[in-house]
């Protein structure tokens, strides 16, 4: 089996009010942080039969549903799952 680890983040040009709130909290706790951006992490398990075109399929899944290309970027890694 294969596991796709997908990370979806807001595009740089999009304000992230959640990230800003967390950033302010960290600063008020005294940590020297520059910026916090909040994203999503997803794991998609694929059957062995999908190995051949897994990369292509994951791009399609990410574009169609897991991310909204208008506001978000995505990236993923594929790894073997025991």
């Amino acid at each position, binding site marked *: 089996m294969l596991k796709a680890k997908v990370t979806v983040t807001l595009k740089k*040009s*999009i*304000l992230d*009010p*959640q990230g800003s*709130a967390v950033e302010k909290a960290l600063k008020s706790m005294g940590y020297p942080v520059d910026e916090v951006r909040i994203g999503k992490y997803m794991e998609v398990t694929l059957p062995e039969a999908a190995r051949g075109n897994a990369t292509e399929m994951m791009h399609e899944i990410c574009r169609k*549903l*897991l991310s*909204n290309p*208008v*506001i978000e970027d995505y990236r993923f890694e594929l790894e073997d799952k025991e």
Partner: protein
Amino acid sequence: MNIGIVRFPGSNCEVDVWEAWKVLGQVPKMLWHQETSVRGYDLIVLPGGFSYGDYLRTGAIARFSPIMEDVIRFAKEGGMVLGICNGFQILTECGLLPGALLRNRDLHFLCQPQYLRAERTDLAFTSLYQKGEVIQIPINHGEGNYAIDDAGLKELEENGQVVFRYVDASGEVNEAGNPNGSRHNIAGIVNREGNVLGMMPHPERVVEEIVGGTDGQRLFLSLVQAWERRMQYGA
């Protein structure tokens, strides 16, 4: 007039929309998200709520429900579609309207009366409003912050696709009148063809004095008038 209101799992304003139409003399039908055809309807309304629990992103999963495939076909063939709140979010997710709705600027869920300015009154949705008129329609959302890139925003403005803008009580477009951080105070937009309208405020909640206002009435009545004209002149 045949009006269909799509009910997704998690919709919660569909009965309000139905009731608003009833007050104004129409009896819409409820359509379940599993249905596959909207043929024969004059107007499809996508109501507010939290379709599919807003999982992943607002409207992201509803957009792939069986009925939406036919709603998209219907819209592309010129059918009238009105998306309110979550309905607006679904319309942006499926690409019938540009942009996206993000978390409100201050992260708060907002449920309050809101001043809007009618920017377009030459549409089937808004012909009974006066251009520049300030109306009050409530908002009720956590993710209504309209986002679009600079090129998209320029295109929207140049094509006059902004139908409603958030304003202060005097009708000025400014930060004070912008509840959620939307770009250019955008509260509602229409597609270039003029048959798909998405808006965050809830016109169905202000159609009777007894519920605190009637500024939403004319949106529904404009649609009826446009439909009557179409029947009469076949336009």
